[in-house]
């Protein structure tokens, strides 16, 4: 039973690494420019602190997952892995949440604050950011299942 749990947990960790890598790649390579009234309007992920935080959060979680896959072949660190899994889950949840909040304002705008939506002028940027956010959300959900598996394995 413990062995099945370990194999299942490692498969989930590989999926989580893949999801975080997809999220980071799509977010970092998203840039677009548009011509509005003779002014060039460029958009990059680094113009928004929320997206920078998203990339950093996913990178830390992805790096930790790779280390934990390598560590899981020695069974000394089980309790430490449970605690670090919880930290990684919280980090992933908060980075996807922050990026989603800003992306929602970018897509719909905010009439009360006088902020115009940005997605109409730079659709390519918005599409790539959408893919990155979906991958980030999948990584967060997978990580929650990994956390439950780790907790079950230590019991």
């Amino acid at each position: 039973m413990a062995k099945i749990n370990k194999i299942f947990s490692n498969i989930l960790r590989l999926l989580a690494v893949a999801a975080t890598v997809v999220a980071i790649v799509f977010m970092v390579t998203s840039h677009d420019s548009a011509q509005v009234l003779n002014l060039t309007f460029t958009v990059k992920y680094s113009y928004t602190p929320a997206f920078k935080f998203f990339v950093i959060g996913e990178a830390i979680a992805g790096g930790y997952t790779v280390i934990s896959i390598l560590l899981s072949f020695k069974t000394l660190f089980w309790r430490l892995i449970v605690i670090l899994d919880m930290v990684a889950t919280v980090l992933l949840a908060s980075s996807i949440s922050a990026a989603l909040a800003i992306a929602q304002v970018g897509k719909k705008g905010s009439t009360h604050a006088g902020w115009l939506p940005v997605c109409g002028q730079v659709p390519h940027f918005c599409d790539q950011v959408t893919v990155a956010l979906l991958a980030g959300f999948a990584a967060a959900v997978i990580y929650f299942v990994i956390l439950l598996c780790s907790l079950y394995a230590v019991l």
Partner: protein
Amino acid sequence: MGLQNEEKLELGCSSSQQRSKKWVLLTVRVIAFLATATATLVMALNKETKTLVVAMVGSTPIKVTLTAKFQHTPAFVFFVIANGMASFHNLMMIMVELFGQKLDYKGLRLAMIAILDMTTVALISGGASAATFMAEVGKNGNSHARWNKICDKFETFCDRGGVAIIASSAGLILMLIITAMSIFKLLNKPKSVSS
């Protein structure tokens, strides 16, 4: 017979430790409940109205009344809902701890408490970070997207929002401590001697 005596001795030695741990956990839960409830209330009652002069027609100024409410921003709505649910969770856990010692479901009581604590931590962290970044955009604006800052006009709104976010962050740290304690309680529970 000998096994039962050993088990009773073991439980008797650590029961005072368990009782003091129980009160520590309960106190931290009460503080976390107060923190998240404060965050919920301060953000939910966050509203500011301001009258601005937009233009002058001759000698009569045209005034516009603008309101800043928390409902205008989905991130703040999520913040209020997440902190409300976290306060409710903490309240339920305090009630169960004080009045429902006998409640159990197939021996999974401690496991369910630990899992619910973990979901609440993830929820609070999501709400706090979304609200933080929305507040940052409101305070500094975003020159690339041509979004103007709003905190210079609505200072009270921004201050109260900041207080709510700080309270929620304190609640998040306390909930992390509570979750760690719940997991340790789960790992160290005395294993029942069967048959």
